[in-house]
């Protein structure tokens, strides 16, 4: 991993289109500003990892689950 030391108001350029600025540093927290193209996906890593883990967990279903659940859910879900 590349490790760089930056001060407040300094920045990092990544590739042609991403610019990161250290906006503020206090109380053990760093505020980071990111300029990137609109279609670049930017996430807090812990949220990304949480959703990735949930997507992995969601793969564990079996075909018979679908039938059982369809019966259960369709009899109890509200209809629109």
């Amino acid at each position, binding site marked *: 991993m590349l490790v760089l030391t930056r001060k407040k108001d300094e920045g990092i350029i990544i590739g042609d289109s991403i610019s990161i600025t250290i906006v503020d540093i206090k109380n053990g927290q760093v505020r980071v500003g990111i300029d990137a193209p*609109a*279609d670049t*996906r930017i*996430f*807090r890593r812990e*949220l*990304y990892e*949480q*959703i*990735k*883990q*949930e*997507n*992995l*967990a*969601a*793969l*564990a*279903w*079996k*075909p018979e*689950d*679908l*039938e059982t*659940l*369809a*019966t*259960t*859910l*369709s*009899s*109890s*879900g*509200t*209809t*629109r």
Partner: protein
Amino acid sequence: MKHIANTRFGTVEYHPDKVIFFVDGLIGFEDLHEFIVLPQKKEGPLFWLQSIENPEIAFVLTNPADFFPDYRIAPDKNDRIKLHLSETDGYLLLSVVTVRPDRSITLNLAAPVLMNPDKRFALQAVLEKGGFSTKTPLPQTVAANG
């Protein structure tokens, strides 16, 4: 002409016109873009979303509005561009279903699937705000009735 896809559950036929393109893949599965929705044997609120590119990858989706009528998530401007949706085009809001080892069901309300049903583009949005859980149990009334 029908195409054949391999799945964990055997081979299935699909029509290439029905392929849904996930612009950014799903979270953790960014390299998988092409999915098909497979029909169920029984009528119901669940859909089986199968990756064409990886037979092992199949998600179960449902319409969260059936269980959480107040859960309304709209695509933002960037989502609309990615989905090729105009300001007035309709879209589908779906949730990834997890069947937990104890067979209880949770919905991932923190990362809904937004879909353009006409042009068949889709993405998994990540909701930073709103306090939605990736493991939202079905409402009590539903669980009790079921």
